[in-house]
């Protein structure tokens, strides 16, 4: 088992800021876009931001993932990323939240003002 731990540790990124469920964050990811085929095939990379509320952090070590939820054009959108994924260019803290549970699934059933999370008063 020691070997697997070493492998997983080598996969982990150290530049990821600490964040928790309830926080609002902005995840900047790198997206590869391919167009054309054969010799004309070109791969372009661009960045895209996904800003929303962290509703879950799951798993441990290199396998840890988190889910960000946002409302896009009135539709709830959730995206799950591996915390240590190389496609994540940057994670920015927008607002720290004050919540009482680890998984904020109840947010899915709330609309408008009720779907907010308390702002953290004292940041440590």
């Amino acid at each position: 088992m020691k070997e697997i731990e070493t492998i997983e540790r080598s996969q982990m990124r150290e530049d990821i800021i600490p964040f928790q469920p309830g926080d609002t964050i902005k995840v900047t990811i790198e997206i590869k876009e391919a167009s054309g085929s054969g010799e004309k095939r070109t791969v372009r990379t661009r960045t895209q931001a996904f800003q929303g509320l962290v509703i879950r952090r799951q798993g441990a070590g290199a396998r840890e993932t988190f889910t960000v939820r946002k409302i896009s054009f009135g539709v709830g959108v959730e995206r799950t990323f591996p915390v240590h994924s190389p496609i994540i260019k940057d994670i920015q803290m927008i607002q720290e939240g004050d919540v009482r549970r680890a998984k904020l699934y109840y947010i899915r059933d709330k609309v408008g003002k009720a779907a907010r999370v308390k702002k953290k008063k004292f940041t440590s």
Partner: protein
Amino acid sequence: MSKAILGEKLGMTQLFKGDLLIPVTVLRVGPCVVTQLKSKEKDGYEAVQLGFGEIPREKVEKKVNMPMQGHFDKAKCPPQKYLAEVALDPGEFKVGQRLTVDFAEGDQTDITGVSKGKGFAGVIKRHGYSGGPASHGSRFHRAPGSVGQCATPSRVFKGKKLPGRMGGDKVTAQNLQVVEVDKDKSLMMVRGSVPGPRGSIVLIRESVKIASKGKR
């Protein structure tokens, strides 16, 4: 030269390769020793016997009996925990030769192991029967149902899929791609899962399907 080596399954994890997340099984591969060469004249068939897992010196007395000690002395190697025969050409090997990982990234391998024992299993788990509805007054849940016809043939056909012992079989997973090799630690990572529990012994061979393709 076809390759074969014994190893131990250490467990599974994931690796980031580029922007892909690949599921891998980590294997400790070798070092193995060629303990015997089976020849047509003497044994009636050709094979190479490999040994894996050196027995520590202080345990040799307790673990190795005299006939086995003699067998290892012939190969001039320390006693090994596991022995396995592989159908390879004995002409390419020497007795006492040490084998280490010689697979490279991107190679296709076949990995043989003994699958996890599931005990006495019913037909749904063992053969993938669909079973009946759980509720709405249904009295048919996980039973196998009818096992055959009536007066003709008035018997149950041989090989009928019924409940019984499941798992613990020799299983080969084919075409597993080697994702990473660490020669210093003699570790190898292959894409996907490998039969058997963690800590079990597996035989890693060159993929038969890819090998036959190359010859054509």
